[in-house]
């Protein structure tokens, strides 16, 4: 059902002062009356495997919050929980004060319209052109005329620097461009929250820098809230206001990028310094080397 809609992209960008400075974010979490996203005592998993256990976290409005951690640690799972692609076993996932777990199908669809998600490899519709990919949510959810859809799509594509690529197919553009198109599509309906799943994975340094700059600039210009799931320490630290390390089913550490650079937490240190061994072991748990190779003395 089409809904009345006004393009936020036409509004002037928010004043820089509306975005809390990074250094104040941790305290602002405590003072802000209503964070945009909040997880309260969330436990979830796949089958018999528990991924997150009793996790509490908040995402303040207008900020860029990064989730970092080891592969399989549950970073992407948090995004899936917020969009209710995955349900919780216990606890609450609040989006703007509404528990997404308690929503019926219509309620869930209404709340998802306020979210934009950038998937790891863009997830563009391969049978549609770049233009039609960005126009897709507008055509599905609004009753705008084709002329207005065209203008809006070109505005969004211009914001990510790909207005000239409108007629190309996803198979004709690079991985970095795909993600920029997906970003244009994610902001097509002017969401309140944009979630980025590994936006830097597999990109060359130029594309990575472009992607990082776009995340920060769009966040500030559109006045949205951004959640970035990434492994890339340098790029993520350069744009995030607050970083949360997720490991072993919970939050291992969190703080501003500067705080985390100086931390003594062994897990964060191993991650930031890219050390091969530490709390995250290089070797997968196994029997001793001596046992496997039949050596005397049980060499390890």
């Amino acid at each position: 059902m089409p809904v009345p809609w006004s393009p936020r992209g036409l509004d002037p960008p928010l004043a820089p002062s509306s975005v809390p400075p990074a250094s104040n974010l941790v305290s602002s979490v405590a003072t802000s009356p209503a964070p945009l996203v909040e997880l309260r005592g969330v436990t979830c998993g796949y089958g018999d495997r528990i991924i997150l256990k009793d996790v509490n976290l908040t995402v303040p409005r207008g900020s860029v919050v990064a989730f970092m951690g080891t592969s399989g640690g549950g970073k992407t799972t948090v995004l899936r929980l917020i969009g209710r692609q995955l349900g919780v076993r216990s606890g609450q996932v609040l989006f703007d004060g509404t528990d997404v777990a308690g929503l019926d199908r219509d309620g869930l669809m209404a709340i998802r319209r306020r979210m934009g998600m950038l998937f790891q490899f863009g997830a563009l519709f391969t049978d549609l052109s770049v233009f039609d990919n960005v126009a897709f949510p507008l055509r599905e959810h609004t009753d705008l005329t084709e002329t207005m859809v065209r203008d809006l799509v070109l505005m969004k594509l211009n914001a990510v620097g790909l207005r000239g690529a409108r007629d190309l197919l996803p198979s004709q553009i690079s991985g970095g461009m795909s993600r920029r198109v997906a970003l244009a599509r994610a902001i097509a309906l002017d969401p309140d929250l944009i979630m980025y799943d590994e936006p830097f994975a597999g990109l060359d340094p130029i594309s990575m820098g472009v992607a990082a700059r776009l995340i920060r600039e769009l966040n500030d210009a559109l006045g949205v809230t951004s959640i970035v799931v990434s492994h890339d320490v340098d790029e993520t630290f350069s744009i995030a206001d607050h970083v949360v390390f997720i490991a072993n089913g919970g939050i291992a550490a969190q703080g501003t990028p500067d705080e985390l650079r100086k931390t003594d937490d062994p897990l964060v240190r191993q991650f930031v310094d890219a050390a091969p061994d530490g709390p995250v072991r290089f070797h997968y748990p196994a029997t001793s080397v001596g046992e496997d190779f039949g050596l005397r003395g049980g060499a390890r």
Partner: protein
Amino acid sequence: MSGIADMLSAIGRSVCGGLTGIGEATRLMGRLVVLTPAALARFRLVADQIFFLGNYSLAIISVSGLFVGFVLGLQGYYTLQRYGSSEALGLLVALSLVRELGPVVTALLFAGRAGTALTAEIGLMKSGEQLAAMEMMAVDPVRRVLAPRFLGGLIAMPLLAAVFSAVGIIGGWLVGVALIGVDAGAFWSQMQSGVDVFKDVGNGVIKSLVFGLTVTFVALLQGYFCQPTPEGVARATTRTVVMSSLCVLGLDFVLTALMFSI
């Protein structure tokens, strides 16, 4: 003891898996039935699917129909001339095609050509996170992707079966009349007087509709619930052909028995 426990738990898992599969299939069918009328409102999406599923299957359907007609002409003449009734060749060819071979062979070919394409397309959309992206855009993939394909398959299948039967009759005529020399007047007049529009053609159309529904649904089901990996999509594609072929042959017996009893 542990061997028995393992066996029991394996049986339990298999029963639970089977029931889950039946539940998923029933829910998907229910949603498709509810959403299909809404798909008509955006007929351009359905028309694209009729073109994709129907038009691209025309070549294989036509060529197969022609050769089936050739064989029917030869085999039919061989049998009928033993009893001195080779003039009934047209009737035999037409009834065989319209009542049985048209719907069944078309459905089997449709499963191989269009069903596999549907499963692979949906499965690859799933593995490429396109369906998940659609859900996150608050767009229901069942409504936007599956329902138009379901309706497209439902419409394309009887049309293809009609083409198959028509080309098959031409094949039977080419062999029986043009090659062997059966009287053309007898060939056509026996066919005209012996084929009933409702009992023969109508039953064939009903069969092809049921087969179209079955094959398209199995293809969509397998694609939608496949494992989003290359192996998962490959397995789902294979299952589409095997399951829909078996369903078509089983349903053909049931439908034929019902139609005889009426």
